[in-house]
């Protein structure tokens, strides 16, 4: 499939994620959107990895071009997992204090 389709899909997912982070008030939804952004990037990385491999394999069967991108996907997944666990822990602690997951409530940086 032409790479453009993957790019469009990834961009769309990323934008949805960005807008979700900016506009949604529920902290858990915001986390989901962050996950969405990360996964959009994963998708794009894998797509490009496949594209580079496909372009290179005709000249040199046995090449390993594009493996780095797939490796990087694993990095992103690990980071995402770590971040989600820490973030959700923070949200649970906050909920215990203020009984709400509304991010507009969480402007304590100002004070």
């Amino acid at each position: 499939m032409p790479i453009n389709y993957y790019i469009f899909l990834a961009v769309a997912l990323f934008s949805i994620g960005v807008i979700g982070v900016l506009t949604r008030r529920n902290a858990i939804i915001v986390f989901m959107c962050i996950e969405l952004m990360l996964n959009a990037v994963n998708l794009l990385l894998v797509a490009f990895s496949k594209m580079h491999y496909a372009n290179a394999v005709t000249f040199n069967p046995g090449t390993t071009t594009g493996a780095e991108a797939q490796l990087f996907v694993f990095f992103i997944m690990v980071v995402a997992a770590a971040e989600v666990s820490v973030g959700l822990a923070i949200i649970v602690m906050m909920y215990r204090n203020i009984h709400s997951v509304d991010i507009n409530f969480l402007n304590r940086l100002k004070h």
Partner: protein
Amino acid sequence: MTKLTYLIPLFPLIGFLVNGLGRRMVPKSVAGLIGSASVLASFILSVLVFMEVRVDGFTAQEVKLFSFIKTAGLDIPFAFQIDQLSSLFLLIITGVGFLIHVYSAAYMHEEEPQHYARYFAYLNLFVFSMLLLVLGANYVIMFIGWEGVGLCSYLLIGYWFKNGDYNDAAKKAFVMNRIGDLGFLLAVFWMIGQFGSTSFGVIFPKVDATAPAVLTGITLLLFVGATGKSAQIPLYTWLPDAMAGPTPVSALIHAATMVTAGIYMIARSNIMYTLAPITPTVVAVIGLATALFAATIAIQQNDIKKVLAYSTVSQLGLMFLGLGVGAYTGAVFHVMTHAFFKALLFLGAGSVIHAMHHEQDIRNMGGLKKHLPITHFTFLIGCIAIAGIPPFSGFFSKDEILMGAFAHSPVLYFIGTFSALLTAFYMFRLYAMTFLGQFRGTQEQQLHVHESPAAMTVPLIVLALLAIVAGFVGVPEVFIKDAHWLEKFLAPVFAASTAKQGEHVVSHSTEYALMGGTVLAILVVMVYALKKFGNYSKTAEPATGFARVLENKWYVDEIYDAVISRPLRGFSVFLNNVMERSVIDGVVNGTGKFIQYSSRQFRWLQSGQVGSYILIMVVATVVFFIIQIFGK
């Protein structure tokens, strides 16, 4: 002898320092002695200088003391110039000054010792400044003396400084003088630019080659200075107010010497005035206008000193008329005779005031003839002299000026003669109301009125003698050929001008006719005034109509106040309240306030809302991308 000229101003300066610094330690008699002695010493030296100068063929000598201002292109030495004109003025200043010092010693005897000494210190300082003025060999030294006499005038008018009105009068004198001084200074700067120097010896030879427009400008500016110092229109209003000072001060400064500084200056610069096209006319017209104007005011004044003050202004106007028509010798002659009889009149007035215990309103005087015989007699002589009745001095000097005016234009002559008639009228009105008729003062005053002590009457007698005989130094051609000694004496000073002026000849018969007619008219006016005011009785009705305008000095002071003083003050208040506070400070403080305001606005960026932070990050990233992709 001329080498020792510097001693002449030095003696009064020493007198000033001794009396001024030691005023608490010097007893009254010593203070008066020091003050008078220093001027006497200067007088003796002036006589010696005069003896040297009057030798035929004496050329002007310059005595340089030290270098005052010396920079590239401009050398102003502290130098004195001895010639006929300055030596004549030296005699007048020191001679009349000495008499007035002696007079003051008695007149001011009521003052406390330290104030008495202060008075003599100021008087000596004045003589010093005036001597600097006439001795200066360049315009800057003249200006030093010029402002110096203005300063002393301020100090002496405001001598009784507890009185607010007197201080106002002193202030007015100084400020009006300063306005004139600005004109003088601008003329000096112009001369520096034009001639590269301020020394008489350098400037006067170059005048021939100078453009007439430049000469007109310089002479007009100098004349502005003269109007301030010599109380001509429009800067004359300080002189009548200056009568607030002690009477001897009025005699010395405002009659005999300071106010004649303007005439000295123009006489000194005569070559410039002769060659400038428009200025002589301006000088003559303003002088004549002032003479007439002041005379009209004097006829309605009731304060003895104010009448004399306006009379001074009027006589000064006459002198300027003389200068304007080119009769330089006549003007200087009149300065000399005026010094004598005006000082005499003022000192006589002082004697009257002293006798009447500080009464100055002539409506409350009268019949003093028998109480103050010497004062009365000398005062009468003064009145006859000022009226211009022969053979007293005033006749000769006034006549010379008027003949010069006639040679220029008969109109000038007739207006001048009219003001002379007015002079006769108000002077004899003054004389009659003061000395003739019934005594109109209080009982108190009548008991105490007595003739003044010798220290006061002797100067009066001396001045009266001078007022009688001084005229004979200037007997005109019509009477005796070649008898005009003064003209011959001053000829070297005015030589260049006389050469340039045409010969204005008035035929002898015309001159006799005019002279005779004028004298007759004056005698008629005199008799009329004596008759009208000889038996004056106080009338309670105030003056009406035109007489009231005259009595209120044509409301000139009020006009000046409304047109100049008040708007200036209002403008300054506006500047202070509006411009200073709101506009300029507004901008400055506004800058500060603006910065505080924008800081407050910027603070909103730091809202603490993480969401807005992320939004801004995203927007910024997008913008960067756009710039990168589309910017190339």
